[in-house]
């Protein structure tokens, strides 16, 4: 197996394509989510959906365009509410901040609820190196942690795993009898996780939205694990990225109407937590609770300042673009080799990591635009893919032979006489290949490539419609 890295994208694609059972699992799961999404929109939201998307788009646009303002506003609110706040330029700064906090709290056991940003940071590996015991408490994330893998989808991390795979994994790692009954597996996980929650010194969560006007942290979930993560331990660390800010509570409510529908087809998730400030001080000062928010930049502020690229950060991490993407449906999330897979991952990753090593992600798309069409905040995803391709050529990352081909091609299409001369030669030879088709390297292994027709339309027009008189007779 190839290492999960965007550098190996092309190899990983081939590897995952040959895994037919993976394809069945991914197709079934994405189809199910899409179907539920469509039903909910049709039955409960109907024509208001497009209006909601339009509103959400403008909320995200205004926020990102005026990010500095809202960033300062939320910083002030956090301090007013007694929440500690850190801005982290990159992953290692996040790790250092967390490490210092854990040491000062003499923490050992840490529970985590779902946070893709901590995946981006590589927080678990880092903390485990220092001897901390980190437990993922979202069921999907717990499965992934047991399997020592990476999430393959941003909202359904274990989407690539079948029920029986999970059954075997639990049986091996948790030493229980094999079962693939979801209720039983969930029950085992719950028994283990309850103990983890009770023994936890620190809870780490992500956040779906951070409301600038009130300093509210909004967390969306279905399992109740996030609520336990944020309430039981005496220290709650929120780790998310700088673009998660929204101006007002009513803005957050609009986005909340789109997020669960887009991601799982639910009108609302089982739990939505709004956290304003640490629990009030009770009589024993030992029980003081603390909340710390860490916002990761990691290249995002550069995107914010680029007018053409900043829409990438409108994303509310619903995962609908992955569900809808015909490429994702065939290869699953691991093929991308990036933390964020699918269409949104392909446009975000190159700007966060080494551009050169992840630019191929942008070429792994037919530009069909299904992602942009389903995106609840109307990100122009396929235009962003094209912008990455443009940047990649500007930076001269393209193969030499490709550059030469386009140079020659340009000389041909620039001059219609040369174009027509070559076109006529091709069409003259066309009939020779009518049966077999043209043999194009690699392509012909999979598909028949048609031969040119015996004459071009240019030729036909010249022959048949040169003069007005002939025009009338055609």
């Amino acid at each position, binding site marked *: 197996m190839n290492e999960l890295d965007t550098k190996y994208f092309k190899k990983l694609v081939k590897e995952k394509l040959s895994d037919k059972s993976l394809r069945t699992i991914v197709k079934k799961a994405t189809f199910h989510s899409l179907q539920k999404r469509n039903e909910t929109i049709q039955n409960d939201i109907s024509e208001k959906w497009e209006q909601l998307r339009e509103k959400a788009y403008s909320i995200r646009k205004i926020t990102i365009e005026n990010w500095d303002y809202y960033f300062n506003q939320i910083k002030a609110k956090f301090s007013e509410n007694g929440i500690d706040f850190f801005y982290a330029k990159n992953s290692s700064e996040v790790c250092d901040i967390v490490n210092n906090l854990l040491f000062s709290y003499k923490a050992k056991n840490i529970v985590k609820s779902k946070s893709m940003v901590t995946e981006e940071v590589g927080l678990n590996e880092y903390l485990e190196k220092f001897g901390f015991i980190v437990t993922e408490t979202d069921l999907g994330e717990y499965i992934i942690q047991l399997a020592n893998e990476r999430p393959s989808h941003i909202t359904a991390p274990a989407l690539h795993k079948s029920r029986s795979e999970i059954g075997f994994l639990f049986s091996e790692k948790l030493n229980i009898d094999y079962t693939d009954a979801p209720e039983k597996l969930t029950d085992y996980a719950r028994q283990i996780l309850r103990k983890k929650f009770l023994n936890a010194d620190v809870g780490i969560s992500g956040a779906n939205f951070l409301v600038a006007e009130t300093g509210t942290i909004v967390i969306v979930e279905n399992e109740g694990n996030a609520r336990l993560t944020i309430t039981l331990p005496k220290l709650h660390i929120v780790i998310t990225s700088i673009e998660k800010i929204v101006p007002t509570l009513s803005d957050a409510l609009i986005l909340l109407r789109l997020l669960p529908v887009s991601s799982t087809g639910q009108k609302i998730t089982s739990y939505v937590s709004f956290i304003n400030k640490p629990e009030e001080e009770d009589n024993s000062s030992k029980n003081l609770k603390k909340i710390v928010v860490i916002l990761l930049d990691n290249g995002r502020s550069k995107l914010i300042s680029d007018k053409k690229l900043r829409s990438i950060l409108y994303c509310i991490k619903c995962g609908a673009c992955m569900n809808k993407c015909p490429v994702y449906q065939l290869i699953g999330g691991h093929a991308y080799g990036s933390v964020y897979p699918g269409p949104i991952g392909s446009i975000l990753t190159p700007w966060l990591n080494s551009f050169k090593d992840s630019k191929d992600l942008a070429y792994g798309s037919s530009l069909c635009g299904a992602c942009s069409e389903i995106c609840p905040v109307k990100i122009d995803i396929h235009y962003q893919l094209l912008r990455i391709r443009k940047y990649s050529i500007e930076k001269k990352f393209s193969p030499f032979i490709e550059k030469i081909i386009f140079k020659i091609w340009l000389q041909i299409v620039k001059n219609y006489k040369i174009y027509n001369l070559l076109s006529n030669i091709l069409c003259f030879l066309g009939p020779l290949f009518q049966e077999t088709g043209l043999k194009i390297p690699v392509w012909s*292994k999979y598909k028949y490539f048609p031969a040119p027709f015996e004459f071009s339309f240019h030729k036909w027009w010249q022959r048949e419609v040169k003069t007005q008189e002939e025009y009338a007779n055609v």
Partner: protein
Amino acid sequence: MKISLFIPCIVDQFAPQTAISTFKVLRKLGCDVDYPFEQTCCGQPAFNTGYHHEAKICAERFLKIFSKSNYIVAPSGSCVAMVKNFYEELDLSKETLSIYQYLKNNIFEFSDFLVNILKIENINAQFNAKVTYHDSCHLLRELKISNEPRKLIQNIKGIELINLNESDTCCGFGGTFSVKFPELSAAMTEEKVNNIEKSGADYVIANDVSCLLNIQGILKKRNSRIKILHIAELLALGM
């Protein structure tokens, strides 16, 4: 009505019948059809691969050639979307930008032009066959055309239009994509062809030759009896 035909290069060389049919149908509907002979390629292959410098030269050339056109009609959603929408991404010169601002509102895909400009939904054609329709991505998502071709098809006498499962899912062509990721592209086309075969149709209709030739690439490999047919050819049958 004066119309300039825009025939994409792939149609020019691989499917001139589609272009001839487009011409004949428009003529039959009373249009005065012209073919600016200097046209070659709109620049999409370069643009999609990231070569904006090359694409821009094509775009500016295209705009100058069609600058005097009243209406531009093309039998392709993809190439119309390139001109209409994606030229915006190119850093066009002042001179060509003003042509673009004017032309982007006057360039139409064939079925869009028939139904929304000429207001023709029934062309009095006859064809006894079971057909199914594939939504080409740029036609559907860039130009928002999906009902127009279906109306035109349904009004053909003797035809049975069968619903295609996942008709709006990409056929996997994507130009450069099919060369850079041939296995992935082929896997997408296989899925498309599976759905086409399941539909029970004899013909698969689409508005883009590139999608059709790509679909044919797998149909031929499978020795399938199902044929591809561009909508313009379908409407011109018997003309």
